[in-house]
């Protein structure tokens, strides 16, 4: 509850958030470096995919983050619509570019992983296709924020779009899976279920690093957003005073 009150008030938020933003960001960078080191040097090559499986350590966590970031934005949008919570709007808006970046990272690394394993740079496989559509939802969300002339209107519209997207995402995912099994083509890829613990550890470390970096950068971006709003308000007050 104490956290809720801190985050309810932009002034309180500005006074306490900076150390957290730094700690999360730095921890994120450190964890990512540690995970990449584990993934490139310590982890053994996969029995079936050889060293190509090392791509997994940057790819799979970015897929998790692409979904986590959207879930975070949807939660913030719900809070903003139901309780008219100013900071929730800022949170959803600030997280969007990072969510989109992780989604783009997931798509590109997935494509590069796909070539040596599947023999093609792009496979219209169920998961890749739904991540691509998620990427378009991110783009639409960001574009909607930018298109509106007042922040009040933009925040309502963006929150509605985010919730509509969140409600539709499982349906889109289901239909894409259905479509994909309908058009099933032979793939060389079989699921990697027997990965050993030593092989999975770097993935979890990188995922934690991504998560911390996402949190830290989102806090920084929220701070920037609030400062820009303040600057805008002061300028308007000055104009009003003549």
């Amino acid at each position, binding site marked *: 509850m104490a956290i809720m009150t801190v985050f309810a008030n932009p002034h309180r938020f500005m006074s306490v958030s900076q150390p957290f933003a730094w700690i999360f960001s730095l921890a994120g960078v450190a964890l990512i470096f540690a995970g990449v080191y584990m993934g490139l040097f310590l982890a053994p090559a996969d029995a079936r995919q050889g060293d190509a499986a090392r791509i997994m350590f940057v790819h799979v966590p970015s897929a998790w983050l692409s979904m986590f970031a959207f879930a975070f934005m949807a939660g913030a949008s719900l809070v903003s*619509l139901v309780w008219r919570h100013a900071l929730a709007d800022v949170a959803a808006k600030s997280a969007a570019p990072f969510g989109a970046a992780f989604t783009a990272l997931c798509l590109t690394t997935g494509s590069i992983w796909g070539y040596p394993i599947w023999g093609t740079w792009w496979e219209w496989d169920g998961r890749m296709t739904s991540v691509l*559509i*998620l990427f*378009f*939802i991110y*783009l*639409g969300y960001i*574009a*909607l924020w930018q*298109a*509106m*002339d007042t922040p*009040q*209107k933009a925040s*309502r*519209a963006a929150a*509605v*779009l985010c*919730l*509509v*997207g969140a*409600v*539709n995402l499982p*349906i*889109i995912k*289901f*239909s*894409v899976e*259905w*479509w994909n099994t*309908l058009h099933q083509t032979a793939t060389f890829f079989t699921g990697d279920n027997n990965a050993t613990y030593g092989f999975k550890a770097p993935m979890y470390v990188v995922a934690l690093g991504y998560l911390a970096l996402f949190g830290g950068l989102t806090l920084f971006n929220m701070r920037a957003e609030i400062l820009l709003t303040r600057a805008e308000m002061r300028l308007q007050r000055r104009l009003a005073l003549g």
Partner: protein
Amino acid sequence: MMVSGAGAVFVRELKQAWSGGGGVSLPLGFFAGACSLTPLSLGPEADLLRAAGPGVLWIALALSSLLPMERLFQADLEDGTLDAYAGSGVALEWVAAAKTAAHWVSTGLPLALIAPVLWIMLQGPVSSMFQVALVSSIGSAAFFFFGAIGAALTAGVRRGGLLITLVALPLYCPAMIFGSAALYGAASGGDWTSPLMLTSAAALFAIACSPFAAASALRAAID
């Protein structure tokens, strides 16, 4: 009372659509034009058109239904009609539902009616014309009601047409997939009813959630 208010909106919108010049015929022209240009780029071979035709017809239908969306709520927002509706006691959810429904009747159904003609031009079998009309009318309902969400979200944006496309296209995925699967089923004489059921489910879902999302977005645009 609510329902009669919505009925009045529906009738008014329908009259306006059929009396106003070009409102209905432009999407029809776009639909026919897009389908007719396809053979010019794919080549006129009948086998190729037979293989690509149902998919081409379906993407053209989806894009044609997006085309008139820009003005769906924007015109009423600009001339104050939406304010009048909001002040008249009719819930905006009903207004959004009635406007979209009227829009679908005046534009979506004509699109579905000319779909079989385009189907034949794309070398589809004549025997499945009725199925094409049915699938197109149900699919266009899904496209129109999902598109209405995009229209409401961008009602306050000048030149929001391209933005609607970006916002609404991800929502089109289920109807896109199941509708074209139904058309391919109809073309090959295979199973077309189960994808049609799934298309109908997408349409019903769109009809159920579109008025609430659209009204919520319109409320923000009004105040």
